[in-house]
């Protein structure tokens, strides 16, 4: 046993969400994550994963960075600063896109929420908050930017087939937002800003709670029987749905095309944007993101993928799938590889099977 889980990083230097005490009371194992102290699990990663697939679960993802951009040029300037089109993003809609480097590499992935003609709300990865802020503010000219991450508010991701019913009851409404729709719902906790987004492949919502709403909304969800779900299950669920994670499937060394994320750079052929020229000059990618399954052992990040004893790829992410009850992994694989694949697990060859992505079908649009 090596001490892999020595989560010792001095707790007093870590940021805490407004729900810290609620997590502790719910039995969370709290761990350092991107500078925050966050719930890894509430006892069972697999049980929490199943709760989201079968009923509903809620994740506190208030560590994720929240930016707001305002001004008459906000959409036009972000359209140039980001990989995907923003100018044609309708008010009331969310869109997945990314920040690209000049060479077309992926610096981060994010969601933009068009909250008004002249206002765009954005959520980026917690670990990239400071770099993204620097990049974006340097790329914008007239647009006013605010980093709201530390205002005490946060994001509660309510996910699962029961999520629509739970949200309708929470807000006291009959109509809940559709996939990628934004809504401002009345509720006994005040108006709730909600988006039809998530990171599980299930129907679900991200509730952008104010500081005053965080605890009451969380408690209302607990009282409604929604399972608290930690970051461990979040990783299982997002990988089952083959949703990319920054630092794994996507990073500076891969392009959106290799990652299978062409939709995230909407308008790339014709728009003028940072990274666009590089994307248009790229040769056909020589590798692709693929799905692997294995028996018993999990192919983990960094393990080489082998074919006939030769390395033909590398694993990006691997987890034990709670839904499929077997190991699953993503990997970058050279194109045109035909033959039995294996993964080098600490010096031993583990046979793996290539399967289509996602591992678990998306139901978020149903």
């Amino acid at each position, binding site marked *: 046993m090596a001490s892999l889980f020595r989560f010792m990083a001095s707790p007093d230097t870590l940021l805490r969400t407004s729900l810290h005490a609620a997590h502790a009371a719910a039995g969370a194992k709290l761990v350092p994550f991107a500078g925050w102290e966050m719930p890894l699990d509430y006892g069972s*990663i697999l049980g929490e994963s199943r709760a989201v697939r079968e009923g509903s679960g809620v994740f506190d993802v208030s560590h994720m960075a929240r930016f707001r951009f305002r001004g008459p040029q906000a959409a036009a300037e972000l359209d140039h600063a980001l990989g995907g089109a923003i100018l044609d993003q309708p008010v009331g809609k969310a869109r997945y896109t990314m920040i690209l480097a000049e060479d077309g590499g992926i610096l981060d992935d994010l969601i933009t929420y068009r909250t008004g003609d002249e206002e765009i709300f954005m959520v980026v990865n917690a670990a990239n908050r400071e770099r993204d802020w620097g990049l974006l503010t340097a790329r914008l000219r007239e647009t006013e930017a605010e980093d709201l991450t530390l205002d005490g508010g946060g994001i509660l991701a309510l996910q699962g087939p029961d999520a629509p019913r739970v949200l309708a009851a929470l807000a006291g409404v009959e109509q809940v937002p559709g996939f990628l729709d934004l809504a401002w719902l009345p509720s006994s906790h005040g108006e709730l800003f909600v988006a039809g987004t998530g990171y599980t492949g299930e129907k679900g919502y991200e509730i952008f709670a104010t500081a005053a709403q965080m605890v009451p909304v969380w408690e209302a969800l607990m009282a409604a029987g929604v399972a608290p779900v930690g970051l461990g299950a979040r990783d299982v669920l997002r990988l089952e749905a083959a949703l990319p994670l920054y630092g794994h499937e996507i990073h500076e060394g891969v392009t959106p095309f290799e990652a299978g994320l062409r939709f995230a750079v909407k308008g790339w052929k014709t728009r003028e944007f940072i990274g666009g020229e590089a994307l248009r000059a790229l040769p056909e990618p020589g590798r692709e993101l693929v799905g692997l399954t294995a028996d018993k052992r999990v192919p983990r990040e960094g393990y080489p993928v082998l074919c006939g004893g030769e390395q033909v790829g590398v694993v990006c992410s691997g987890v*034990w799938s709670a839904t499929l009850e077997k190991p699953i992994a993503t990997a970058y694989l050279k194109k045109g590889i035909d033959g039995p694949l294996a993964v080098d697990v600490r010096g031993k060859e583990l046979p793996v099977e290539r399967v289509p992505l996602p591992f678990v079908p998306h139901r978020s649009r149903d």
Partner: protein
Amino acid sequence: MRPDDRSYLPSHEWASIDGDIVTVGITDFAVSQLGELVYLDLPDTGRAVSRGQAFGEVESVKAVSDLNCPVDGEVVEVNAGLPDDLSALQDDPLNGGWLIKVKVAGADALEGLLDAAAYEEVVAAES
């Protein structure tokens, strides 16, 4: 406190001696840190093992980890049913979830390992 009838490694393995046979396992703290177990690899009998060297691997939903041997000797028995049913290791790692038995040279095989009180300090520091 954990049982004082045995000795411990700081990497969370335990060893108890009976004559020239040492039974080896991992502690409940190790299991709680790993979480839900999915895979266990144990050595064949007859294999020579030595203190501090890996004799197998355990894998959980969260991570894979080496199993380090607390003693020098030869593996004479393994808990053969365990890899196919990890529940004893998950639920009772200090007893029914033992891993291997090692034949050692002498009664001093556990010398230099941690006693229960010293191991408790390791656990406290990592909790």
